[in-house]
């Protein structure tokens, strides 16, 4: 029996009075590509940020690769992990942001090499070789020495994907990776993500690109008001939704 790579159990996250996540439970299996869809404000970003521990959950638990995230159980209580332990756990996930968040004072190559060099303390020569290979993989071999400001949005996002991959994560989190892009640049980013999915990477993708979800996703999860409303195979959820809210959302999007 294989185990889920990510197990989310009864997770709640509040911002003050507001419940951004309500009792969310979900499994993500190794090699699975999961697309999260839902209206703006439904908690999709918050869910990804909790998995990457950029946000701290208020109750429940998230296990990644069998390891409880952010806390340790001891004597019937939960104790928060130290910053360095959280940093170590974060290395198992790679995050791609809607607004790229490349480091503007570093070249494409330096952006990719920063984590392996500074955080993992690996050798410069080997990191450089790998970074160049990653750039080739995202189709940007000629842009190694360009600064982010010299790249188009689509190119920046592809560098951001390479930067996340450089840490050799087990799980890739994408938060609306194409939403900040001009329509003609969306395709090049989605192509890189498709290739990544084909290579067997486990991925959680928040997206409004239903075509991508239909083509690539093993499972589509529809969220509304901080809860999972419906999930299943892409063709079922997108083609024949059972829940009224899902139907309403899909007819509004298409």
């Amino acid at each position: 029996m294989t185990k889920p790579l990510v197990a989310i159990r009864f997770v709640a996250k509040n911002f003050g009075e507001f419940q951004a996540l309500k009792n969310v439970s979900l499994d993500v299996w190794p090699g699975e590509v999961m697309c999260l869809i839902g209206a703006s404000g439904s908690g999709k970003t918050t869910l990804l940020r909790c998995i990457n521990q950029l946000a701290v959950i208020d109750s429940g638990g998230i296990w990644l690769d069998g390891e409880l995230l952010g806390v340790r159980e001891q004597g019937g209580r939960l104790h928060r992990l130290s910053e360095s332990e959280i940093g170590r756990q974060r290395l198992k996930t790679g995050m791609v942001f809607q607004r790229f968040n490349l480091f503007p004072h570093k070249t494409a190559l330096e952006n990719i090499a920063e984590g392996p060099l500074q955080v993992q303390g690996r050798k410069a020569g080997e990191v450089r070789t790998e970074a160049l290979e990653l750039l080739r993989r995202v189709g940007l071999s000629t842009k190694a020495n360009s600064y982010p400001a010299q790249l188009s949005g689509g190119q920046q996002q592809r560098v951001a994907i390479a930067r996340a991959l450089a840490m050799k994560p087990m799980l890739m989190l994408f938060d609306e990776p194409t939403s900040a892009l001009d329509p003609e640049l969306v395709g090049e980013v989605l192509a890189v993500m498709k290739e990544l999915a084909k290579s067997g990477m486990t991925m959680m993708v928040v997206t409004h690109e239903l075509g991508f979800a239909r083509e690539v996703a093993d499972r589509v999860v529809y969220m509304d008001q901080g809860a999972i409303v419906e999930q299943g195979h892409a063709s079922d959820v997108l083609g024949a939704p059972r829940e009224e809210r899902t139907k309403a959302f899909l007819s509004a999007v298409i």
Partner: protein
Amino acid sequence: MKPAPALAEGFPDLSGMRIAREPHWFRWLSAALIVLVLAAIARAFANGQIEWSYVSRFIAAKVILEGIVNTMVMAVLAMALGIFLGIVVAIMRLSPNPVLKTVAAGYTWLFRGTPLILQLLLWFNLALVFPTIGIPGLWSARAVEIMTPFLAALLGLGINQGAYTSEVMRAGMLSVDIGQYEAAQAIGMGRLRALRRIILPQAMRVVIPPLGNEFIGMVKATSLASVIQYPEVLHNAENIYYANSRVIELLIVAGLWYLLVVSILTPLQMLLERRFARGTLRFAR
């Protein structure tokens, strides 16, 4: 195919005409007035009780040169101390730890809230409070011997500067997009490494112009150290005029040196700005 419609009459072709030059009478008039005023001031000084020969005699005197070197040494060291403290205090203020936050805010409050000259006098006279200082059982010394004018000036100027610089640094760090912290965390960086590698280099771009200002202020603020016998250029100029009574001449000598130093600093600042502008110009390098 329809022919292109004819253009309407009454709108002549202006493409051959030049723009006429306006006489700008007012500019000429005001410039002439300013020249007159300057000439009057120059004449007043030339005929006034100033022995210009003393200015030229002392401008490169050994004591004055030593003074300006001491001024620069103190300004650079105190500014370095100020920037170091400023960065540390700014990081403390932005940390989630309430103890660090309060300590940092208290430091800024205390050292910005009292006059610099008072702080210098306090450091210099520390021996009145603590006759001996040291680590109990390990090492101790008489405070009068430790607290030289140099050390008192360095501590007074540097620690005071740190209080101001911390606010400049804090503004710089706040100017960096929150997404940069998150991207740094997402590749596993801790808070301090993210600050050092990602946030501070970007903050530097924003803080260099105000820091340039602060450094120019520091060069001049070193003159306050003359009251605690630190031999900077004003102090040495004063010592000369106590002996020869050429007060104005020596003050002019010191003033000219300050002007020269400050004039050199401006192009240096531009070099630094260019260094930290990496990646911000679309076609940089």
